[in-house]
Each structure stands twice: as C-alpha cells, then as structure tokens.
C-alpha cells in the first residue's frame, strides 16, 4: 500500500507541475534567440540596401532629366544660330527689315542660353563652351557685318561676302561644336547609367544573399520550433498516459485513496474510498474528513495533524494509523490509514491511503481462537499422558522394574517437553499478534531476580550448576511487565544452565547504565558456535539438532525472549567465546525508585482475588499513577489505544472500565456503545481532562476530571461500583 501511495504521490506532483519545462535544454532558448536576433539584423541591412537602391535610381532619373535638358539647351543654341542666319540671309536678299526681327531675337537669346549652359558645365565642357562662344562670336560678327553692308546700300558686296563661304564655315563650326557637345552629354549620361547599373547589380546580389541568409535562419528557427513542439507533444502524451495510468490505479485500487487539502476537506477520492464509506463520490467532495470518523475529531485537530505532518514529514511519514471509521449508515469499522504529504508547485496536499481491516481483524480473531482451541485440545490428552506417567514415575502405582521405570521416565520428560513446546508456541503467537497483555509498571530488580533464581534452583540442581547473583542495588528498577520479565530471565537462566557443565557457575548481575538497567546472565559453558550467532534469536533455531534431545529445549526460548524485550522497549545482546562461555545482556528502560509507589511484596493470595479493571490511557505517567492508586484494591489492565481496548473488551471481562477521551487513535467514548452491548452491567467510568459531548452522559456511570487530587475519588468511585456489582452477581 505504501508503494502505491508513493507512486500516486509522484504522479500527482508530476502532473500538476507540468514537468516538461524542467526537462527542456537551455540550448533551445539560445537557438531561438539567435535566430530572432539574426533575422532582425538581416532585415535591417536588407532595408538599408533596398533604400540605397531606390535612392540610386532616383538620382539616375534626375541625371537623365538634367542631361536631356542640357541637350535641349544645346539644340536651342543651334536653332537660335539658324534663326540668326535665316534672318541675316533674308535681310541681305530682300533688304526687308522684317527679317531683322528673328535675327535680333536670336542674337539676344544666344548668350543667355550659352551662359545657362556654362552654369552647369563641367571643366571639360567649359572648354567646349569657350570654343562655341568663339565660333558663335565669329558667326555673329559676319552676320552683323553683312547686315550693316545692306543698310549702307552695299547689298551686292554683302551677297559676295556671304558667297565667299566664310559665313557658312562659321555656321558649320557652330553646328559641329553643338553636335560634339551633345555627344559629350550623351557619353556622360551613358557612363552614369552604366555606373548605376553596376551598383544596382551589386545591391541586388547583396540583397539576394541576405535574403537567402534570412530564409535559412527562419528555416532553422522553424525547425527548432517544430522539434520542440514534437518533443512537447511527446512529453504531453507521456504525461497524459501517465495520468491515465495513475488514474486507473487510483480508480481500480481496492484500497481507498482520499486527497485532502491542508484544512482537512476532501479534494478528491477514488471509488474504493467512496464505496468503503457507502457514499457516492460526489457527496464527499469538499466535505470535512471528520465526517468519516466514528467520533469526529475536534475542530482544528485534523488541520494541526496535517500541519505537523507537513512540517516534519520524516518521523510520521509512513506511519500507519488505525481509526474507527463510520459508514454512511452509521456502522463502524476498523480502518488503517497512511497519510503522506504531496508537495505540489503551489501548495501541499495530503494523500490518505485507506484500508478496511475488518476482514483482517476477523481473521486474526479466528486464528487466535484456532490456536487457543488447538492448544487446548492438545493439552487435554497430554494432561492424561503426563499425569499417568507422573504417577508411575512418582511411585504412586507401586514398584516397577528399573527398565520400565527408565522408559516411563523418558516418556514423562518428553510429555513435559511437549507441554513446554505448546506453551511456547502459544506465547510467541500471542506476542507476535500483539495480544499478550503487557502490564508495564516500575519493577525493582532485586526481588524479581531473587524470585527467578529461586524458581530455577531446582533446574540448576539437575545439571549440578551453581546459581550466583551479584549484589543488586535496591534502587535498581525498570519499567516492565513482571510476568514477562520473569519469563525473560528464566529463559536466559535455563539456557545458561543447559549449556554449562556440572560444577560450573551461572552468574546474574544488574548494571546501571544511562537511563537503562542491564541484566546480564553469564555462563562458562560451551559458548555459541560462530555459525549459529546470526540466527540464534530465530524461531526453532538450535545450534545442533542433537542438542534438542540432550537439552530438551523447544527452540523458541530465545525468540520469545527477544520478542518480549523488544515489546518492553529494550534490547538484547550477547557475547560468546566458544568453549569458554557466553553472556547475554538485556537492557531495559530504567525508572527511578520514587516512581515505585508502593513496595512490592509477595501478597499473591490477596492480589489473586482482586477485581480486574480495564484502563484506557495513553499517557504512561497517568497509567502508572492510576495503577498504583489501585494497588492491592484492584488489578489494572492498562491499554493505550482504542484498538487495543476494543480487543481487550472482546477477549476478557472486566469488573469496571476506566476510559480517557483523547488518546492517540481516537476517543474512549467510541467504546461506550460496544461495552453497553457486550456487558451492560459493567461500570463505565470516564476519567479525562475533557468535556463529554454527544449525548453519551446517560450511558456513562461516572465522569471524573483528571487531576492528581481526583485519584482517590476515582478509586473510591470505582471500588464502590465494583463492590455493588460483585454483591449482585455473587
């Protein structure tokens, strides 16, 4: 169950944290960041390049326009010269002053145009412009000379001068120069266009390479994102699968699981948990867990418990607790609960794994009944066998021949061994099932050891072994159950005697240690064989099978000793040297002599007639106080949990029952109903520091508030009731 709970806890943590983030490598983030940064940089450069391209084109367009204007200007200069010549010739031929108008317009415009051209001309072009000026001047000089001649009436002379051809040559020169200049303009433009084309190609190449880079980067980024998406999807699917699997475990488990929030209300639960309590799952959501207890815990109790669990989960983690749980129909059943914290990213929840142990309880009960019955059935015929043999052996049936006598002796000792074996099996069964009642109280060791020595003396005499006790300090005392401690020391002594040789000593000593008392039993016998040391405390462990017959042991002695010592909160060790002997140590919790309320005496007769009380109390000090208060007046069977008390009520009959309300696993009030059903006449006394709630007052005989002073009152009240009861039943 614990394994399952752990797995579920892990799954819950995994699911609710979205664990995949933890698993992503940082490389992913770096790669995406690099791709984004690179893309941005490339885009910037690209934009810049395209911008430059646009600017270049614009400049080229401007240049072309300028070049066109320049050539138009040149054509205008030429055409003005032609106008000039036309005007001159017309005037010379017709002497009509009307022709002088275009002539005058042209000669006025020519310089303006040439100056305009000069303004934008380069150095090379300016040389050409100077040449043009000179040619133009020459042409205009001829034109003005001929016009002047016509005005002076020398028309023929003017015609001759023109015919001589100088005028035409000047005009040709102008035309040639304008053509040359136009060509120059064209060449410059062509050059500029070629340059621009060159730079355009360069920009285009750069742009293309940048675009390729950009596309590659985007492709890489895309790939990375796709890959991460795939990985993410895979993780999501895994998480989903896991959740489905865990949900299946959660839903199909026969154990109940309840997830609690820190205040103790139910967050979720599986069908088994709901079925266990007879509720529908929906009915329990958001309800307080107290609803499911037989006696609802007090306000804040669950919360405090969970807080403690959360704060120090080590000591209580994995501790299975038992509660009396209540079904919807009010029926009560024993429930085993393991609560463990589930640490999520934002909060801590608590997973309670629940198991209905009614069946187990029933089986335990059946088993113990069976063992008790079998042992009783075995002991009945053994009583006859051992009794008959004992009578013959003791001479009660008259003399027998030595041979018969020896055979009867063998049969008798083996019958006795069989009885011991049955007793030991019963003991170990009871201890292991936790059903051996332990009446733990302060015990002074000196009288106890003396008693054991006395009882074992006869056995020691059979083996010719001397028993010795080192002086024991009168204040040496331990917290233990008297009968069980006697059993422990007797078993150790019996072993020591069996493995000693005749004439050897077996020595018992008590040593005070820090908060413990050590009882040691030392022999000088054969010692424990090396190979046997590891298993010496195991059941039916014997060093040598032949020993069984020789020593007559059951093989259970030391395992009973160990079980008892462990239950008493002590420890057992041994040291041994083969051939030289062994020493067994039992360490038990020490108690100060002041805690021993009254000196113990051997008033067995009186004590045997004392009424038996059941006392439920989880504080050992209070237990001891109450027990000592009843000393010589009643025998007190002390139990510390509701579960043990319930068992005791099933197993035995008590003259009265004293209950505490708040114990580790519940409340004594849970037992009132059971007590009233089984033994309606048994007085029930509640002895507690709390108030009684829940309408049980009328079922309780007396309720007393705990305090030292009230102990006398408790004793008198209890004894009064017990007395009444006895006089009624007797």
């Amino acid at each position, binding site marked *: 169950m614990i394994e399952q709970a752990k797995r579920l806890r892990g799954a819950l943590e995994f699911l609710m944290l979205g664990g995949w983030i933890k698993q992503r490598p940082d490389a992913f983030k770096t790669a995406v960041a690099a791709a984004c940064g690179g893309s941005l940089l490339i885009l910037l450069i690209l934009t810049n390049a395209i911008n430059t391209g646009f600017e270049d084109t614009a400049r080229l367009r401007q240049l072309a326009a300028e070049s066109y204007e320049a050539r138009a200007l040149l054509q205008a200069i030429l055409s003005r010269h032609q106008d000039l010549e036309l005007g001159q010739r017309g005037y010379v031929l017709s002497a009509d002053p009307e022709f002088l108008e275009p002539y005058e317009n042209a000669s006025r415009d020519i310089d303006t145009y040439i100056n305009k051209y000069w303004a934008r001309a380069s150095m090379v072009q300016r040389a050409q412009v100077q040449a043009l000026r000179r040619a133009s001047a020459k042409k205009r000089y001829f034109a003005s000379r001929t016009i002047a001649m016509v005005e002076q009436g020398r028309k023929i002379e003017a015609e001759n001068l023109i015919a001589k051809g100088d005028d035409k040559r000047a005009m040709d020169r102008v035309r040639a120069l304008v053509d040359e200049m136009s060509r120059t303009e064209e060449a410059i433009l062509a050059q500029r266009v070629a340059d621009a084309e060159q730079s355009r190609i360069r920009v285009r190449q750069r742009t293309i390479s940048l675009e390729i880079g950009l596309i590659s980067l985007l492709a890489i980024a895309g790939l990375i994102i796709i890959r991460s998406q795939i990985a993410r999807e895979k993780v999501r699917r895994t998480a989903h699968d896991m959740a489905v699997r865990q949900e299946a475990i959660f839903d199909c488990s026969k154990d109940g699981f309840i997830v609690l929030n820190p205040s103790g209300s139910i967050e979720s639960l599986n069908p088994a948990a709901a079925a266990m309590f007879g509720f529908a799952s929906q009915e329990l959501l958001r309800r307080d867990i107290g609803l499911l207890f037989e006696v609802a815990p007090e306000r804040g109790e669950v919360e405090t418990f969970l807080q403690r669990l959360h704060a120090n989960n080590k000591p209580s983690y994995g501790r299975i607790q038992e509660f009396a749980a209540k079904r919807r129909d009010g029926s009560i059943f024993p429930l085993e609960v393991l609560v463990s914290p589930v640490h999520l990213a934002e909060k801590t929840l608590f997973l309670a794994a629940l198991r209905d142990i009614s069946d187990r309880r029933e089986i335990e009960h059946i088993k113990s009944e069976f063992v*008790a019955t079998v*042992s*009783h059935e075995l*002991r*009945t*015929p*053994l*009583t*006859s066998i*051992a*009794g*008959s043999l*004992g*009578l013959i052996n*003791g001479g*009660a*049936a008259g003399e027998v021949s030595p041979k018969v006598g020896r055979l009867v002796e063998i049969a008798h000792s083996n*019958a006795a061994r069989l*009885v011991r074996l049955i007793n030991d099996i019963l003991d170990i069964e*009871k201890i292991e099932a936790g059903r051996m*009642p332990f*009446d733990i109280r302060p015990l002074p060791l000196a009288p106890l050891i003396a008693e054991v020595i006395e009882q074992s003396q006869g056995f020691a005499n059979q083996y010719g072994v001397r028993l010795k006790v080192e002086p024991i300090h009168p204040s040496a005392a331990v917290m233990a159950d008297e*009968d069980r401690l006697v059993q422990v020391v007797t078993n150790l002594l019996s072993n020591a005697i069996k493995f000693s040789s005749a004439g050897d000593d077996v020595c018992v000593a008590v040593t005070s240690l820090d908060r413990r008392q050590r009882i040691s039993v030392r022999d000088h016998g054969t010692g424990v064989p090396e190979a046997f040391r590891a298993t010496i405390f195991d059941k039916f462990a014997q060093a040598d099978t032949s020993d069984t017959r020789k020593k007559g042991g059951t093989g259970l002695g030391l395992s009973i000793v160990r079980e008892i010592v462990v239950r008493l909160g002590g420890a057992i060790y041994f040291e041994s040297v083969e051939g030289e002997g062994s020493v067994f140590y039992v360490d038990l919790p020490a108690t100060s002599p002041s805690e021993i309320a009254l000196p113990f005496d051997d008033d067995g*007769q009186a004590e*045997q*007639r*004392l*009424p*038996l009380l059941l006392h439920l109390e989880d504080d050992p000090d209070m237990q001891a106080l109450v027990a000592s208060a009843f000393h010589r007046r009643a*025998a007190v*069977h002390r139990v510390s949990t509701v579960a043990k008390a319930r068992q*005791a009520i099933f*197993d*035995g*009959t*008590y*003259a009265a029952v004293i209950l505490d309300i708040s114990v580790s696993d519940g409340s004594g009030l849970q037992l009132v109903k059971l007590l009233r059903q089984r033994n309606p006449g048994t007085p029930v006394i509640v002895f507690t520091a709390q108030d009684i709630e829940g309408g049980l007052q009328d079922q309780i005989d007396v309720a007393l508030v705990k305090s030292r002073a009230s102990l006398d009152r408790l004793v008198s009240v209890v004894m009064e009731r017990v007395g009444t009861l006895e006089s009624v*039943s*007797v």
Partner: protein
Amino acid sequence: MSIRILYIDDEPDIREVAVMALSLDPNFEVRTAASGREGISIAQSWAPHIILLDVMMPDLDGPSVMATLRECPNGGDFRFLFITARTQSHEVAKLRAMGALGVIAKPFDPMTLAEQAGAFLDG
C-alpha cells in the same frame, strides 16, 4: 477428619488420573462427576469441602456450574478451584473475579496436585 473433594471433568482419563493423584493424600475423600449437571447434583447432596472443575465442558461449563451452585441455599459455602489449559492472565483474572479461589494449570503435576488443592483449603 477426611476432606471431601469433588472433581468435575468431562474427560474420563483425566478424571482417573486426578482421582489417583488426589488419593495420594490419605486425608482426601475424592468423588468425580463427568458433567456439570452431575457435579451440581453430587455437590448438593454430598457437600464437598472443595470443588475442582474444568472450565470447558459441553452443555454446562465450569463457570456456569459455579454460578448455579452459588445460587443454591448455602451456595456461599462452596469453594471452587478451576483446572484449565487456558491460563492467560486475563482469563485467570476473569475466573477469580467470578469468585474462584484459584486456578491450576493443565496439565497438572499429579504428584503435587493434592498438595496444591490442600493449600487453597488452608488459606
């Protein structure tokens, strides 16, 4: 003066052994009963000084025999010793609480049984 002692047990073999064991003491006059009912009728007519009885018997068990006899006139005079294989401390305590003088564990030691029973009478 002889001491009348009644032994009630449903096991005939144990009864026989017990009679032999108790008869080792010449002061004891022993009678046995094979059932609780037989034991009650013998006890009423014979008035034994002490009744040794088995706890687990068919029909009427030891504690019931004791309870029945206690209710008879002069029932308070009967003294009971249980002979039982069930000797867990709370079981012993329960029997004592019901008013038994004591409990002797089965299997008993036949050579000392008479002595043990006598010890309760003296006390």
